């Protein structure tokens, strides 16, 4: 029926060419850092027997605009399962992640449905993106399955009274508050100025992430009586931030508190330099990434972040962090790109402990055990404790003992400097931050 002619011949050629290309690409795997021989993950089509394996869903944006950090977060969870399996797994059973890709809330809904109803997992860990977390956890709650959120920071994720939702990670408000605390406790002191005399500018990319951090920062700053002169959001796809920088310059902003993603962050620093805008200090609201160092070289020293626990944090305060760093270096031959995998790693480990204690993956048992946890700060690889807000609390499910730490670039490395107990030995500030 198909006579090959003209466009059809073209199409066939195209198919063959592209099949060949795809096959060879898949065969070589591109130049991504591969998780070779990773037996802990599956796309869920091999239905292993339930007896010797514990299957947990793993939902992150692996494609789309959040792919980079979503993939980094996922790697933390993969590593956690690998290490735990090497130590015998949970109660003798191996952990197996069932992977889902959720670049946006709609995919989150369908993938969560798939993981729960087709792959039959009782627990799902995710999601990095607040939008994904929001949508996916609603589906899980409907099915009465556990949603173990380690990444999404928007406060309202855990403001819905969900019984089966647990957020191990810190909220965006925490990022914002820590940023301002850094200004108060460290920046102002080092500069020998009254913190209320400093002009603060809060700028942020305008998705849920940046907005929630900026909201937290602004609210806390104003409550402390600080002088916030500018607060503006911009689109992360912006091609030009020069107008915003000129505004900051004109208002004589002393302390800049930006919350950015990767490309816009790089653009910001580049244009700040071009326009000769040099605030006394820059305290970012998150996403401390290696790209900043690659782009700015030695000039990055002195840049501060309020972010997840960095690899260089006091090991005594963060049990498991040293092992994480060692194993990550072994596997990927480079330092972590950002702190996100550490959070997922720590969160996954807490989850594994909960499953172990509960003796099964039954959601009600898991919820019970999780809510009963009462670990102080300094108990996990992120230096956080674990205590989930109880039933009836408006933020039910939030980890009350998770907060953003303050860190700074020193000698080309990011080191934690706040709170003191978590500080990396030898860390030094560099203020004002002159480039």
């Amino acid at each position: 029926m198909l006579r090959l002619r003209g466009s059809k011949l073209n199409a066939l050629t195209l198919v063959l060419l592209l099949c060949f290309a795809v096959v060879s690409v898949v065969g070589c795997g591109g130049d991504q850092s591969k998780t070779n021989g990773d037996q802990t993950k599956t796309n869920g089509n091999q239905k292993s027997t339930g007896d010797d394996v514990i299957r947990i869903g793993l939902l992150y944006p692996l494609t789309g605009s959040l792919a980079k950090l979503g993939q980094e977060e996922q790697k933390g969870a993969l590593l956690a399962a690998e290490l735990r399996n090497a130590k015998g797994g949970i109660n003798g059973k191996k952990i197996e992640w069932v992977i889902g890709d959720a670049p946006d809330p709609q995919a989150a809904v369908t993938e969560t449905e798939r993981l729960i109803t087709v792959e039959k997992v009782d627990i799902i860990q995710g999601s990095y993106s607040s939008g994904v977390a929001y949508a996916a956890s609603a589906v899980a709650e409907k099915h009465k399955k556990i949603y173990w959120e380690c990444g999404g920071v928007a406060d309202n994720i855990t403001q819905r009274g969900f019984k089966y939702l647990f957020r191990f990670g810190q909220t965006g408000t925490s990022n914002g508050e820590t940023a301002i605390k850094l200004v108060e406790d460290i920046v102002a002191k080092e500069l020998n100025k009254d913190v209320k005399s400093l002009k603060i500018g809060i700028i942020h990319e305008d998705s849920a992430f940046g907005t929630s951090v900026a909201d937290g920062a602004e609210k806390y700053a104003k409550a402390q009586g600080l002088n916030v002169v500018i607060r503006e959001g911009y689109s992360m796809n912006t091609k030009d931030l020069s107008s915003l920088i000129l505004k900051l310059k004109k208002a004589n902003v002393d302390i800049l508190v930006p919350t950015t993603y990767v490309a816009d962050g790089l653009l910001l620093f580049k244009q700040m330099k071009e326009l000769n805008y040099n605030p006394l200090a820059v305290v970012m609201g998150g996403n401390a990434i290696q790209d900043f160092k690659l782009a700015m070289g030695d000039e990055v020293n002195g840049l501060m972040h309020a972010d997840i626990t960095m690899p260089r944090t006091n090991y005594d305060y963060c049990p498991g962090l040293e092992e994480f760093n060692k194993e990550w270096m072994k596997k990927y031959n480079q330092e972590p790109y950002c702190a996100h995998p550490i959070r997922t790693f720590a969160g996954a480990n807490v989850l594994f402990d909960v499953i172990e204690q509960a003796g099964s993956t039954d959601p009600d048992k898991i919820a019970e055990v999780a809510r009963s946890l009462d670990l102080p700060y300094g108990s996990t690889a992120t230096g956080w404790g674990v205590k989930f807000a109880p039933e009836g609390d408006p933020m039910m499910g939030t980890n009350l003992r998770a907060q953003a730490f303050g860190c700074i670039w020193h000698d080309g490395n990011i080191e934690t400097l706040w709170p003191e107990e978590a500080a990396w030995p030898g860390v030094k500030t560099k203020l004002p931050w002159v480039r």
Partner: protein
Amino acid sequence: MSYLQDLLTNKAKMTVTIVVIAACLLLVVPALMGNQFAQGIIILILLFGTMTSAWNIIGGYGGQLSLGHASFVGLGAYTAVLLAVKFGVSPWIGMLAAAMIAVAAAVIIGWPCFRLRGPFFALATVAVGEVLRILAINLPGITFGSVGVSVNMSEFGITHMVFREPWAYGVLALILLVTMLGVTRIIERSQLGFYLVAIRENQDAAASLGVNAARIKLLAFMISAAFTAVAGVIYAQYLLYIDPQTVFASTLSVQMVLMAIMGGVGTRFGPLLGAALLVPLDQYIRAYFGASVHGLHLVIYALILILVILLIPRGIGPTVKDWISKYERKAESGVTKQSDEGAA
């Protein structure tokens, strides 16, 4: 000859019918057996099917390439959800309000923009869609901004339009879809439909024959907007959460157009067919390939799209219809021959 007899003797029609039934069974049976993932896919097919069929009224029959139709999805979703969250208004009334707001928007957008032709009109609609998305992000006082707003899930049931079982959403979406298709049929056979097609083929010629092009296009746009908005409301109630990026996304606008073109633009069932093909395709490819090399599943999806466009440029619906009629003609000439030879 009765329809059934005709069906049984026409091999091509038979094959197609069997394929369609098989495909439906593949989806529907697991859904009926409680597979909520399959149910979810069906709901999305029904909702997107409605949206793209609505687009088809102005885009297919009218030939006006609107690339910003997500504007109406977003307007509908936000109207209903904000009314519910801020004023406690029932989603059913919210649905009515959504339709009205969409119609008003259609007039405001269409009246100036329909003066533009072809790619200019298309780009103007893209611009409108983007402006709405930006406003939704930057006016948090009204829309809650980027963090989005969640549908009140505290109570389930029909009055709240929040259901525990997906099939309830499916029923709602199905009713809407059937209504949409019915309206399409009425338009197809009405004066509005004829005028629309005339405008599509040659607007100036139609105008010279007395067709009020501006009014006709506007009318079609209003109908299209209303249905899209109502679908948007059900979509929001299903997702239980909306944010500017999900409901005002340009990718959503493009998908509506994609489905219509794939299935056969300007035909009654084409868009639905397109939705029924593209939604499961995307979901299943993601399920199978989503865990391996990142991005592979979308590369495969895109390749399949390219192939289909090259091999079936008129859209799947019209092409299949062509096969059937070609076969019918062959059969007719064959029948004459056979009767000559006296075969049974």
